[in-house]
């Protein structure tokens, strides 16, 4: 690799915690999840040839956060209206801050949780919290994955009989760590 050439390209999404953050990076043949905490960095690689599926689930965090911001805005706004002392300026500033936060949260779009699935694991891509960023990421990954795996034949997406799915269930399948329950084959059979 020539000196100075960038191996990884930054992808959208970022998760910030207490003295830590996670980011996603696009490598030459893999997606890299880098978690930085204090003075160390941990990596997880998802090779394009191994990625089986990317599952995005919409959550209601944006609506919940908007409700919280709206409630606080109303409280500060009402207090600012009924206060005559020097506190009024402070309360108005606080109202403004929460209105701004409300607008920003609303403009950033729907929230989601994104999981990447390989043959041996299902891992949450924690930096992806907004659907817009997730969509951008999937669109950037698709050509790389298709280059590594080839195009997806349309006939593979045709629904299969329940018996085939039940047989597939009997094989060990990767599961998210937090979900121990797996529907039985009987649930799928008519």
């Amino acid at each position, binding site marked *: 690799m020539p000196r*100075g050439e*960038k*191996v*990884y390209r*930054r992808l959208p999404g970022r998760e910030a915690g207490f003295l830590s953050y996670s*980011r996603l*990076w696009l490598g030459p*043949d893999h997606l*890299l999840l*880098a978690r*930085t905490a204090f*003075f*160390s*960095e*941990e*990596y*997880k*690689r998802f090779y394009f*040839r*191994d*990625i*089986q*599926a*990317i*599952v*995005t*689930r*919409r959550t209601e965090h944006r609506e919940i956060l908007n409700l919280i911001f709206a409630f606080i805005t109303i409280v500060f706004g009402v207090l600012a209206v009924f206060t005559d002392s020097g506190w009024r300026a402070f309360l108005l500033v606080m109202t403004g801050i929460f209105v701004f936060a409300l607008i920003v949260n609303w403009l950033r779009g729907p929230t989601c*949780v994104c*999981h990447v*699935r*390989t*043959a041996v694991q*299902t891992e*949450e891509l924690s930096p992806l919290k907004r659907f817009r960023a997730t969509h951008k990421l*999937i669109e950037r990954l*698709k050509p790389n994955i*298709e280059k590594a*795996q080839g195009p*997806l*034949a349309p006939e*593979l*997406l*045709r*629904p*299969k009989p329940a018996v*085939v*799915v039940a047989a*597939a*269930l009997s*094989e060990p*399948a*990767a*599961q*998210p760590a937090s*979900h121990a*329950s*797996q*529907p039985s084959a009987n649930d*799928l059979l008519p």
Partner: protein
Amino acid sequence: MSVVTCTKCGFVLSEAMFNQADWSHCPSCSSPLRVEVFPALFSAPAPAQPAQLLVSEGEASCFYHPNKKAVLPCETCGRFLCALCDVELNGQHLCPACLASGQRKGKLSNLDNRRVLYDSLALTLALTPLTVVLWPFSLITAPAALFIAIRYWRAPGSLVQRTKTRLILAMFLAVAQMVGWGIGFWAIFNS
């Protein structure tokens, strides 16, 4: 074939939900889902290549398994390897010993799962005493920051950020603080 499950309830999702332009709903928990699947989901895992036994006297044998036929040499140490011992990584064929050694020494960046960010450590040590309250600590932290910056100048840093800006800044700040202390002591002893 593998199956894709809902990430909330674990219910097995049907093919009708795959690669849809709009949100689908999990039949079990009604969570809105978008499932992008790729050919690897439908392909069976490639069977492992079995190591072949030696059939004639003149054949090269594996370094680790003398009764198994060698198929290629390790690209690092040159030892002959059977199909069982051959580990392919980034198009390179390595033996298990070279793989372990490469991982230990940090030569195989694709196997690195964790790295210490010495540049961030040095910069934090150099910056922290610049606050009003903690400035006396710079007597200790400035040399420590300088030591770390020099000692780990060539150590592999973050996989994703390759510049030495933090180390240079840490060295500059540390030297400046040490010079400041030097001038301070010189002024005290001369007065």
